[in-house]
């Protein structure tokens, strides 16, 4: 459903992505992994329209979306979370989800101010649906709290809930387990799997927690210095020599080479 074809992106003199091509199959959980600075978040930002690629194209459901702004991409059915949580901090947990319903509703400036009957009906529907989503992600008991008052683990779950409220076909998660403890990470893994299985949403995930990645992904793409160095199932990737080198570093490799020599 998502086809990334030959993406190049540089920031000033820094080449962040060099000719990246990745395909994501409908219904998959796809993980993007790689050392810090490999370009994973940059790629996510290009898919979601925050950056435009220098060269190359992104196709979503067969349509070229490479030069669309992020708000249009969101309306096409791609939603996301952020590495540094970007909740609406001065709004309640429920209101955050309700903002997610924006793309699926219509009430305009004037009709809202005049409180037309259809607006009230729609508003009730937004509220009902949002409460349902809070139930789904187990945050219902928090609905009246300010989003910024939640612990980081719940903030990350809430961000996923807000993304779900837009009813996406594709969900991009940028390091959803960062800052979470083991128990919270388990719970997160369960939620991600539930979303894929029950809501049939395709998921692309950037993550450093290897245990989580290996447990939930169907397919993994490994980036290093802006290039794809490996691709495959968790098992295949774990065995891949280049991946081990990228993660453990050159020195070890040199050391190993030296050992083999003598």
């Amino acid at each position, binding site marked *: 459903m998502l086809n990334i074809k030959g993406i190049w992106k540089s920031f000033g003199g820094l080449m962040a992505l060099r000719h990246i091509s990745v395909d994501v199959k409908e219904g998959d959980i796809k993980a993007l992994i790689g050392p810090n600075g490999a370009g994973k978040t940059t790629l996510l930002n290009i898919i979601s329209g925050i950056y435009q690629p220098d060269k190359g194209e992104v196709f979503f459901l067969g349509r070229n979306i490479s030069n669309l*702004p*992020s708000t249009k991409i969101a309306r096409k059915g791609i*939603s996301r979370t*952020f590495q540094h949580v970007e909740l*609406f901090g001065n*709004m309640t947990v429920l209101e955050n989800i309700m903002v997610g319903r*924006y793309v699926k509703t219509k009430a305009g400036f004037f009709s809202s101010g005049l*409180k037309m009957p259809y*607006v009230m009906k729609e508003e009730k529907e937004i509220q009902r649906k949002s409460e349902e989503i809070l139930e789904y992600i187990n945050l219902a008991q928090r609905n009246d709290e300010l989003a910024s008052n939640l612990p980081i683990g719940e903030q990350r779950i809430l961000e996923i809930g807000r993304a779900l409220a837009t009813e996406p076909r594709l969900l991009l998660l940028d390091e959803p387990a960062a800052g979470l403890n083991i128990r919270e990470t388990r719970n997160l893994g369960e939620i991600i799997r539930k979303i894929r299985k029950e809501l049939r949403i395709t998921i692309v995930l950037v993550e450093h927690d290897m245990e989580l990645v290996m447990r939930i992904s169907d397919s993994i793409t490994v980036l290093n210095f802006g290039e794809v160095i490996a691709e495959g199932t968790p098992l295949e990737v774990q065995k891949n020599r280049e991946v081990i080198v990228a993660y453990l570093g050159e020195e070890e490799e040199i050391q190993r080479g030296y050992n083999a020599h003598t």
Partner: protein
Amino acid sequence: MKKGDSLVFFIFIFLIGLLPVLSGSTYIMTVGVFAGINALVAIGLCILMGYAGQISLGQAGFYGIGAYVSAVLSLHFGLPVVVSLILAMVVAAMVAVILAVPALRLKGHYLAVATLGFGEIIYIILNEWGPGGPSGFGDIPHFSLLGYTITSTTGYFYLIWGLVAVVMIFSLNLIHSRTGRALRAIHDSELASNAMGLDVVELKIKVFILSAVYASLAGGLYAHYITFISPSSFSLFYSILVLMMVIVGGITNLWGAIIGAVVITVLPELLRRFEEFDVLVYGLILTLSLMFFRKGLVPILVEKIKKLRGLAVVKH
């Protein structure tokens, strides 16, 4: 409107109805009229700044456009006052679009300076090309509707506060809607707002237009009430005054705009007894209130009430 708002609204209407009955003195009614005019401008700025997070130091510009356009159309072109008021709002809305499209790309201080510049440009235009130049012009017709003309200050008091009530209902509905949530979301995180598919640019322009329309309505009413206008009423000082009202009342609460407008309008009157020291005392009160009630009067009051309720619940 929400439950709490409905109650406050009822009290608000009650007070408006009651004040002229309790004291019909022209002096009090005059202060009341000005408080109402200021409240209209302040409500618009409160939505723009407190909810959508966009700064404007140019509200006096829209206030001036409202006053001059409505006055000129009714005086020189003989249009009915209601029509000229509506046309003044349309002109202000169009000017707001022209200003908003480039200006709203700016953020924070830059937007503040751009709107400040806009206010000054309008002020200079009124001085140079406005009828009567710096000394202004008079004989502006009074407000009239269906053959009935309002000339008494009490009449204007009811008219203007009636309009404040209408504007308040519209605004409260707006901020508690899909659109209002979107505005607050933009305030908190533009990045996330875009990722959620919100029309960030369009919403910013619309809320800017709304604040301009409110200000121009107030300006028009001012012109028809006082029947004489000159550019000095529409200088930067007025923009700052409105900003003050919104901040003193509490920028995160729409009722704060009304309370702020009343306080800032009434305060100089109460300070008359200090004679030549009045400006000094005025400044002192404002400074102290900003130091000790930084969130503004209404939000602090709301917190107090919530706390009291919390205590009551614990006792039971």
